[in-house]
Each structure stands twice: as structure tokens, then as C-alpha cells.
């Protein structure tokens, strides 16, 4: 039962933390709960479908269908997060102003929230399908399955609980800093996802394999809770390869420079108008 709780907890944790960051990053926006929650619900439905076809998916593309699927899901999420961050750097200022003036409403225009719907949905889809397969295996196994499914329920609740703690913590950040912090979090989240996608492509044999550049597993193992949290939040890997690092840094630089360029243009138009 404990084993089932831990496995489900670890799968749920990643999606829960990502969604918490997305919710904090959209604080005060109208209907953001509907958009992000709707994305998550669609993700659960998608996870069941993916789990049901897991066998056929795995056989596709010469046995590398699962890897290509995971890489595509991760890279799509990276694009969505990139778009969000770049949009935010153009509008953060007016959003902060409207959040400070309660009742003024969001004057920043509509944030294209469907990007975050997709990002939330994809996070749930990827982790959820593994959860569903695991629980299906238990249910098919027969003995003890009720206790194991109970354990799965505990794991699910614990994962969502940790996400809620992160969300509450982020909300304590003063409004004028909140979007800057969530912007950085999303940037690092996206870079870590891109590195994971590179690992899947290497596992599929589509990108070359490399020896790790360094090994910090003695200092901080990815198995530990801290290592795992850092892996999810900033893409920590104890044994990164040159491939991981390239994808990580390329993502950081592309999204970061996009944000910087857009924010600069915004500042100049604001100055010209005043």
C-alpha cells in the first residue's frame, strides 16, 4: 500500500507542481481556473486514452513511439510556456497595476490562456498515463488490489497537497514581484522539460548518447526528495550530458531573449507615450 502511495505520489507531484506555478503566474486573471482546470481535466481523460493504447503507441516508430510521444509532449509544453512568458513580459506591468487597484479589472487585455490550458493538460497527460498504467497493473493483479488502490488514492492526495503548499507559498510573494518570480520559475521549468525531451530522443536512438559531463549524485541524488523536487522545478540532473546541457541552455537563451526583447519594446512605447 505504501509502495503504491509513493509511486502515485511521485507521478502526481510533477503535474501538481507545474499547475501550481501556472496558477500563481495567472493570479487575478478572469476565468484562469476554468482554463487551467479544464486543461488538467482534459489531461486526465487523455491519460486514460494514452494508457489504453500504450501497447500500440510503444510499438509505433520501430519501438520508439513512447519516446517520440513523450518528447513531442514535452517540447509542445516548452513552446506553450515560452509563449506565455514572452506575452507576460509585455503585459506584466499593467497586470500588476490592475491587481493593485482592486476592482479595476484587468486592463491588460486577454492573456491567451489556452496556452496554459495546453501546458497544464500536457503535464497531466504525461504523468497521468503512467499512473493509470500502474494502477491498471494492480487492478489486474488481483490480491491486495483494494489496499494498493487505497495507497494510490493517498499518493494522489499527497501530491495535490504539496502542489497546494507551493501555490500558497507563491501567493505570499508581493504582487509587484510575483510575476517576475513565476516568470523565472516557468523559464527554468521549460528548460528542464527541454532537457528531458532530449533524453527521450537519445533513448529512442534519434539523438546520440553521450557520457555524463559530471556526477553530483553523491551530493544530491535524483532519488532524494530534494533532488526530485529540483528535477521537476529547475530540471536538476545528477548526471547531465552535453545533450541535456545544450537543450537546457538553448531553451533558457531563446525564451529569455524573447522576454527581454519584448519587455524592451514595451518600455520604449511606454516612454514614447508619456
Amino acid at each position, binding site marked *: 500500500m505504501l509502495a503504491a502511495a509513493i509511486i502515485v505520489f511521485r507521478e502526481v507531484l510533477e503535474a501538481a507542481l507545474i499547475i501550481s506555478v501556472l496558477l500563481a503566474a495567472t493570479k487575478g486573471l478572469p476565468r484562469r481556473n476554468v482554463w487551467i482546470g479544464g486543461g488538467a481535466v482534459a489531461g486526465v481523460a487523455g491519460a486514460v486514452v494514452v494508457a489504453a493504447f500504450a501497447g500500440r503507441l510503444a510499438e509505433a516508430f520501430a519501438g520508439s513511439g513512447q519516446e517520440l510521444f513523450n518528447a513531442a509532449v514535452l517540447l509542445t509544453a516548452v513552446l506553450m510556456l515560452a509563449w506565455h512568458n514572452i506575452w507576460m513580459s509585455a503585459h506584466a506591468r499593467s497586470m500588476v497595476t490592475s491587481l493593485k487597484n482592486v476592482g479595476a479589472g484587468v486592463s491588460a487585455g486577454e492573456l491567451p490562456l489556452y496556452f496554459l490550458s495546453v501546458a497544464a493538460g500536457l503535464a497531466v497527460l504525461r504523468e497521468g498515463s503512467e499512473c493509470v498504467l*500502474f494502477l*491498471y497493473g494492480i487492478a489486474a493483479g488481483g490480491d491486495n488490489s483494494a489496499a494498493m488502490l487505497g495507497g494510490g488514492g493517498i499518493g494522489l492526495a499527497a501530491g495535490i497537497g504539496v502542489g497546494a503548499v507551493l501555490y500558497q507559498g507563491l501567493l505570499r510573494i508581493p504582487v509587484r514581484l510575483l510575476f517576475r518570480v513565476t516568470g523565472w520559475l516557468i523559464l527554468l521549468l521549460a528548460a528542464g522539460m527541454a532537457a528531458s525531451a532530449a533524453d527521450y530522443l537519445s533513448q529512442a536512438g534519434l539523438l546520440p548518447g553521450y557520457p555524463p559531463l559530471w556526477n553530483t549524485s553523491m551530493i544530491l541524488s535524483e532519488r532524494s526528495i530534494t533532488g526530485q523536487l529540483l528535477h521537476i522545478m529547475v530540471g536538476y540532473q545528477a548526471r547531465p550530458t552535453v545533450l541535456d546541457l545544450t537543450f537546457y541552455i538553448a531553451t533558457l537563451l531563446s525564451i529569455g531573449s524573447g522576454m527581454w526583447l519584448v519587455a524592451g519594446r514595451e518600455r520604449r512605447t511606454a516612454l514614447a507615450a508619456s
Partner: protein
Amino acid sequence: MFARFLFPILLLAASGAVLADIPVFQLTIQNNRFQPTELHVPAGKKVKLLVHNRDAAPEEFESYDLNREKIITGKSSGTVYVGPLAPGKYSFFGDFHRDTARGSLIAD
């Protein structure tokens, strides 16, 4: 941007994977255990692991040492490329049965 950069790389890598002679090694999961528990592979060479799951329940082949994770559904097989590896021992485990499903890859 990804399409522009990644696509040629993928094509190159894919053609490389086809052309190169990649040695294949077999790993079996039965009764939630790996067989063999120690698998020797050549160091400094890319290798292809064929993981066969003889159990009805799905298993996830996972390794922190190798940065690999792959779900192998019940009664099916999966392919995982690893390496080139430096000589040494790389542990892996079945994520869905961590107590029993343990093993290591020995590159020598």
C-alpha cells in the same frame, strides 16, 4: 525554431542509427524481477537493450544512472538505446516493483 534545428539533426541521427551496427542485448522481466540481474555490455559503444516483459502487469524500466525511463506494457517488449558508456556499473530498476525488480548494467 525547434523544427528548423531539430529536424535535420533527427534525420542525421536516424540515418546514423540505421547505418551503424548496434549490438543488441536482451533483458527479461518475469515475476517482477529482471533476468539477468547483471548484464554485461561493451563500454564506449552505443547498445540497444531489448526489454521483454513476460508478466501481465506493466513495468517501467528506469535508471537514474543511465537517465532512462520506459514503460513496458504487460506481455510486450521495448527498445532502449544506451551509451556509449564509460566502464562501470549502472543500476536500473522496475519503477512499479522497486523492491524486487533491480539489476545493473556493467559496461566493460
